[in-house]
């Protein structure tokens, strides 16, 4: 059986990769995809800890097993779908305005 630390370390590694991508890349689409990777990492940690702490907690139980982490991951997926829809709409509007998707061209509020 894989211990839960392996899952958590994998989740942290994915989060770091996604964070570096968000900081380094200037293509707005790639930055959004990096955010997806980071949220996936968070979901993985939540589900792994839920699996190892089955009997903890009184909420979201079914057959004596707590599902808090999985329910939270479900809500993260729902929020992320909303975030991607609005984010890609903003990317399209930005492209229509400036004919590019580079994030450093979005400097309308500068000075």
């Amino acid at each position: 059986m894989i211990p839960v630390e392996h899952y958590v370390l994998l989740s942290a590694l994915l989060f770091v990769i996604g964070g570096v991508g968000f900081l380094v890349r200037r293509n707005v689409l790639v930055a959004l995809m990096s955010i997806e990777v980071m949220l996936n990492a968070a979901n993985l940690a939540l589900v792994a800890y839920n699996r190892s702490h089955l009997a903890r907690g009184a909420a979201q139980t079914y057959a004596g097993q707590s599902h808090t982490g999985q329910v939270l991951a479900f809500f993260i997926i729902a929020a992320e779908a909303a975030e991607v829809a609005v984010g890609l709409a903003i990317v399209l509007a930005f492209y229509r305005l400036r004919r590019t998707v580079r994030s450093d061209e979005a400097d309308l509020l500068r000075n």
Partner: protein
Amino acid sequence: MASLATAYFYVCALLAVGGAVSVVAAKNPIRCAMGLLLTILSVAGLFLALHAQFLAAIQLIVYAGAIVILFLFVIMLLGPAASTPSDRRGLAARVLGGGLFGLGGLASLTLVARAAEATHRVIPMPQPDGAFGGIEAIGSALFTDALVPFELSSALLMVAVVGATAVARGRQGARTMSAGEQEIARRPPSHEPPRELHTSGVFSHEVPPQEGAETKENPA
């Protein structure tokens, strides 16, 4: 049997990390989207290994079926403009920020791993019964303890649909752009859009329409 589970975990983990690296490193946004798809599929496989069957299905349907397809739609819609040419402006700041974050993250990761090895305290992974993580269990949790956030998430999705439609359509009904929008649209981008076909995309065979062309001739 245990070795099979271990091999499954490591294959999924390797694929997930490879997909994440290709999201970050690939030049072509289509390849980035494919890397994201690979990461999502591997994380769904890990969810299956963690007895989260319902979440694995949701992951496949929502992420791979909706989010990646939405990204691909936008990349195809933008065509050649979706891949930005690389230049060196702001390179030092970006490398510094990304490097600090990456090094800090990796350092804390190794520290946590060594601490976990040093304590020799194994967190038990109890074997759940068959109902754990199934659609019945998640549905029961969603409609009893998590009912209010569940209903609120439907409101969130509704607002997101309306907001995305409003933002992406722009001011279609307006006859002209406002003065501020004209001022913004008149400014040419500080770089030339790519002309050569080094990207895939539906419109990659034709040069993107140069809307800033006529404004460049008579700058304000």
